[in-house]
């Protein structure tokens, strides 16, 4: 029994049927009653296990990541892979190159082949996410949408700790290198940065937006030097390492002349010299929790949807931050 048949019989779209079960408040009462009556009549249950039985279990789950070459995506994917293996499932990965239409296409290609789908920081529109969730159980990582299960990291507090750390070292001019605008992750970091700056009586200076890549950090470094800041908070570790790299070329010493903080704490943070002070995001826990949520029979069963699971981040102090010196 498919959602489309229920939709056709009730005279509504498949997305509406999905909403009735995942987000009943978003549907008019009479429509909801009509859909429920048809669903009952046709013995349609949007229970994930029942759904996969109807579809024939594939023993596979899928994940769509923004960039398969990104170190943070790599850590999440590995954690997901291990947890999926524990559940007896294989994992298929697809990368989107950070384009919403690509992402939709890859998610759509995976959907019929898997028992469940994880989406990392998806950029696609709400309606597309709901439609996808109507065909296969979906859990999102770092995106919130009513009615769809998700696991998110609230990095705002740890980013604020980073600002406090720099302030305690005597820094009064700190610049934030912003990541892709509109991304969920950038929003949290920006909020933590602004709140901490306001609390400590410092001006919040932002540069960017930058791509979340090494090359963007190389480019940002010269802008940072021109800004007169003594400390940098970068959107992620790759950008931070790009900054360090360019500063080395310019003869600026880290942390003697300039302090740098990244975000993610991928292996890159330990590979760079000096080792990077960074906000550690719990990528491993994030991936594992997302898989467990996907296999949780409560997800997408009936009108009761789980609340998003919120994980927190920690500031890891290493060698790229030090006391401010007069330049």
């Amino acid at each position, binding site marked *: 029994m498919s959602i489309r048949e229920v939709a056709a019989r009730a005279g509504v779209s498949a997305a509406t049927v999905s909403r009735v079960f995942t987000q009943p408040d978003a549907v008019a009462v009479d429509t909801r009653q009509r859909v429920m009556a048809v669903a009952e009549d046709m013995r349609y249950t949007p229970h994930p296990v029942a759904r996969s039985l109807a579809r024939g279990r*594939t*023993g*596979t789950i*899928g994940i769509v990541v923004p960039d*398969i*070459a990104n*170190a943070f995506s*790599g*850590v999440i*994917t*590995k954690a997901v*892979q291990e947890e999926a*293996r524990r559940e007896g499932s*294989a*994992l*298929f*990965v*697809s*990368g989107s*190159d950070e384009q919403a239409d*690509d992402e939709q*296409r*890859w998610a759509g*290609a*995976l959907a019929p*082949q898997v028992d469940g789908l994880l989406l990392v920081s998806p950029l696609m529109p709400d309606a597309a996410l709901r439609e996808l969730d109507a065909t296969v159980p979906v859990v999102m990582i770092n995106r919130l949408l009513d009615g769809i299960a998700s696991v998110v990291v609230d990095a705002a507090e740890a980013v604020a700790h980073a600002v406090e750390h720099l302030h305690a070292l005597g820094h009064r001019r700190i610049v934030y290198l912003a990541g892709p605008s509109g991304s969920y992750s950038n929003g949290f970091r920006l909020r933590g940065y602004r709140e901490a700056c306001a609390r400590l009586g410092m001006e919040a200076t932002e540069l960017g937006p930058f791509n979340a890549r*090494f090359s963007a950090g190389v480019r940002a470094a010269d802008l940072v030097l021109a800004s007169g800041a003594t400390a940098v908070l970068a959107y992620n570790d790759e950008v931070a*390492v*790009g900054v*360090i*790299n360019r500063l*080395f070329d310019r003869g600026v010493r880290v942390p003697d002349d300039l302090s740098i903080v990244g975000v993610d704490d991928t*292996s*890159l943070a*330990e*590979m*760079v*010299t000096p080792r990077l002070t960074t906000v550690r995001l719990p990528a491993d826990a994030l991936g594992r929790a997302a898989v467990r949520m996907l296999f949780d029979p409560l997800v997408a069963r009936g009108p009761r949807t789980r609340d998003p699971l919120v994980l927190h981040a920690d500031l890891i102090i290493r060698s790229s931050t030090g006391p401010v010196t007069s330049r």
Partner: protein
Amino acid sequence: MSIREVAARAGVSPATVSRVFTQAATVSAATRQRVEAAAKELAYEPNPVARSLARGRTGNLGIVVPDIANSFASVIAKAVHREARAAGYALFIAGSDRRQDEEYRLARAMAAQVDGLLMMSPRIADERFEQLTAVTPVAVINRVVEGIPAVLIPTADGMRQAVDHLYALGHRHVVYLAGLQSYSNTTRLDGFRAACTRLDLRCEEIDLDDSRFSAGVRAGDLVIASGATAVIAYNDEIAVGVLNRLAHRGVRVPADVSVIGFDDTGLAEMTMPLLTSVRLPATTAGAAAVRMLLDRVDGREAPAAAERLYLPTELVIRSTTAPRPGRPAA
């Protein structure tokens, strides 16, 4: 006319019929002739459209890589992804964590859901490929298997360039940090041994049996203890681990020790000093492997002998190599 009828008439399995048309070299000549005769009599044509109708074309390709978080694997996967997308296919990627049983399980799961399968540096036994090609066309990167088309990056020549470079800088005692046993490691070793013999160098091999950053950190101390003035690492990740450990130990690169990596992934440009590395044409390899695979998928090619494409490597000199301490290069 179905493949089953052809199989019944020829007295073989449908998988064998499929192999005759997709991987002819894996079927004995006698069986092949019998199947071809049966196919002709029954006017069976495995043309791409008929085939995709019969099999239900998925519009997907798959790739199984050894380690999904490895930087070289991700450069290959990206190139494969681009080429697949350009040809109108979605790409599924799976990582085996270098476990043979897992690799085979993933390959089987994928084979059933894609129109063609790529495997990067696979470790499964040769016989396993027969079972996979019975389900879907297969091509490999960096592995030689009879009957399977392959893109190969033999690195012996890149290694020769690396050792020659160190020799010219005055180094006479060089260590090679070996990775996991694989086609890639074997060709590096071949090049290393040949160059060492030719130049009469003092050469040592340290078998790390690993290819990650942490193994390089561990190797750093072994390199110092060896007394060598230059080290060549299996890949950039190991080389960066060595750089890291040497920096902690107060050993200067390249003033005290020269370091060379392999792969030339983005990592080589992120270190300080920038890493001298042997560049592997990962992007070219990924794209070529997709085209090779699609030739099978679309039935454009059914060659008697599996195609082999060999790609060259090149030493990229940056800042981690310098004249041997206390002895300027001639």
